């Protein structure tokens, strides 16, 4: 176990380098010169000498790889430059907006787990009965609605019609997080529910369950033990796979609900071509994603001993 975690950590190093290199390279490719961009965005006219001086100061006259290493060095100290738009340090801006996004993501995941596991199990147990069809249809609908459409509908019904939740988030609170997280949870639950149902059906058809049933062991006891564990593994696998779309999906939902997180920050930055902010967003999101993947991977092995032996590829 420990050995595996260490190996995974070591594998992470080249990936992290690739992420930083790509994030840096991509933004350097982004059309016009960083210095000119900055000058243009802050307004006013500037002389060629000023541009040259700024370029030298930023080390933009040096070879690309030297620039990259310098940038990495600064990055290690938490220095990612300043936003072209607000003039504030990029790193602290990002850090100040990250908790809101993490809260949104965590609440969405919790909602998803709370909804999809019980409903998935219920649906499986009642296979081909009314409840199963209702749940499956609902999950199908949830899976086929774009999240921006869902947000608009939720906003209209729950904020305007019922006045239960605020339209715009005033602060980072449970009440404000409700609608955006429900939006994200709807699509995810719809997907997971189907998987949980399939897993449970699979488990229920196994010989030991059938045997236990034949022996007269109470149905729910066997189910709760093994079936719950099996569906948990499914959920974790799926979470790993969809954490990426969750992190990206927050961008759309955050901008609709005015949720002051990194997703809205990124969309605003893209519109204003505020490259340092975009760069920070892309890079840190990738790093978070990779780390989450690592953690789930390791816990996955811990939960399911079969994989530990099998050594399947991840």
């Amino acid at each position, binding site marked *: 176990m420990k050995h595996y975690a260490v190996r995974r950590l070591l594998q992470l190093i*080249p*990936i992290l380098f*690739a*992420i930083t290199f*790509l*994030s840096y390279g*991509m*933004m350097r*490719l*982004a059309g016009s010169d960083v210095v000119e961009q900055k000058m243009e965005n802050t307004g006013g006219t500037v002389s060629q000498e000023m541009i040259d001086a700024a370029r030298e100061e930023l080390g933009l006259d040096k070879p690309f790889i030297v620039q990259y290493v310098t940038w990495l060095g600064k990055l290690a100290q938490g220095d990612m430059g300043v936003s072209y738009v607000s003039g504030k340090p990029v790193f602290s801006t990002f850090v100040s907006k990250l908790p809101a996004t993490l809260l949104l993501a965590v609440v969405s995941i919790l909602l998803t787990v709370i909804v999809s596991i019980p409903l998935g199990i219920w649906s499986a147990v009642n*296979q081909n009965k009314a409840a199963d069809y209702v749940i499956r249809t609902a999950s*199908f*609908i949830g*899976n*086929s*609605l*774009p*999240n*921006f*459409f869902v947000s*608009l509908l939720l906003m*209209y019904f729950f904020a*305007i019609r019922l006045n239960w939740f605020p339209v715009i988030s005033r602060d980072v609170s449970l009440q404000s997080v409700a609608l955006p997280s429900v939006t994200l949870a709807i699509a995810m639950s719809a997907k997971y529910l189907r998987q949980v149902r399939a897993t449970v*059906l699979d488990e*229920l*058809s*196994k010989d030991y369950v*059938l045997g236990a049933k034949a022996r007269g062991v109470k149905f729910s006891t066997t189910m709760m033990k093994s079936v719950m564990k099996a569906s948990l593994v499914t959920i974790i696998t799926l979470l790993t796979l969809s*954490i*990426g*779309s*969750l*992190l*990206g*999906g927050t*961008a*759309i939902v955050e*901008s609709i609900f005015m949720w002051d997180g990194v997703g809205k920050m*990124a*969309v605003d*930055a*893209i*519109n204003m*071509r505020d*490259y340092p902010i*975009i760069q920070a*967003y*892309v890079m840190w*999101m*990738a790093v978070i*994603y*990779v780390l989450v993947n690592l953690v789930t991977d390791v816990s996955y092995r811990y939960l399911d001993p079969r994989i530990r032996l099998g050594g399947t*590829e991840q």
Partner: protein
Amino acid sequence: MNRPVTVRVQKVKKNRIRTRLFFFLFLAVILVLVSFFADQIVPYDPYAQDLGLSRQPPSPAHFMGTDQYGRDVFSRVVVGAKASVFSTLVLVCVTSVFGTVTGTLCGYFGREIDSVVMRISDVCLAFPGLVFALAIAALLGGGMSNAVIALAVISWPKYARVARGQTLALKNSDFVAAAKLAGDNSAQMILRHILPNILGPILVTAMLDIGTMMMELAGLSFLGLGAQPPVAEWGNMMSGGRSMLQTYPWLVLSPGVAIFLTVVTFNLLGDTVRDYMDPKNSGS
């Protein structure tokens, strides 16, 4: 379920799946045809403005009403299929073909090609989906083709992985070994024995991908990073009509329902294809 089933029951089941498959395939083909011939079948010019007809509610003349410029919403939704359905199909086709080819080559030849391509795909996969697409959109600027490129870059590794895994499994199988003994060269081997056998899982992956890709493409347009006005595209139309959800709801609901129904159709088709391919449901 693992209940002992007779061959007869299995055959009935298989037939039912086949009927379903044809039904959804029929719906999907209609959608594709609509997107192909959108310009010919629309009742009005989707871009012709007539301010005198601004914001008309649905009526026999304008089935889905008109927008604020007096354009016929139904015509715009139909033409929007061209942008949404057609672009998505192109996107999925290109990424699945590219991914499958690279994945198969990697799996078959292994060694350097394999490790290089897989590391590249690792990096592509290291960036969470839409985040990477947003970054690429930022780099390239808005526009439908740029949005398609952005999504293509993040979605090919998925196919490469599936194809590689399948190829690896097949490479060590008896019949490939036999073919090798019979003197087939690499090209023959891949074309005759490997590709036909991995197409199933690839097709299922691609089918299930269409709905997701369509929604992500619409999402990018909704954020203003995909199709640009006046191009009629569903995400874009919804974003333009957002402020009229309460006052002129048909402007938002028409494209919204169009996306929903299209995604449902392709998702159902994908599910059915998967069931059809599933050996558990195979009657033979």
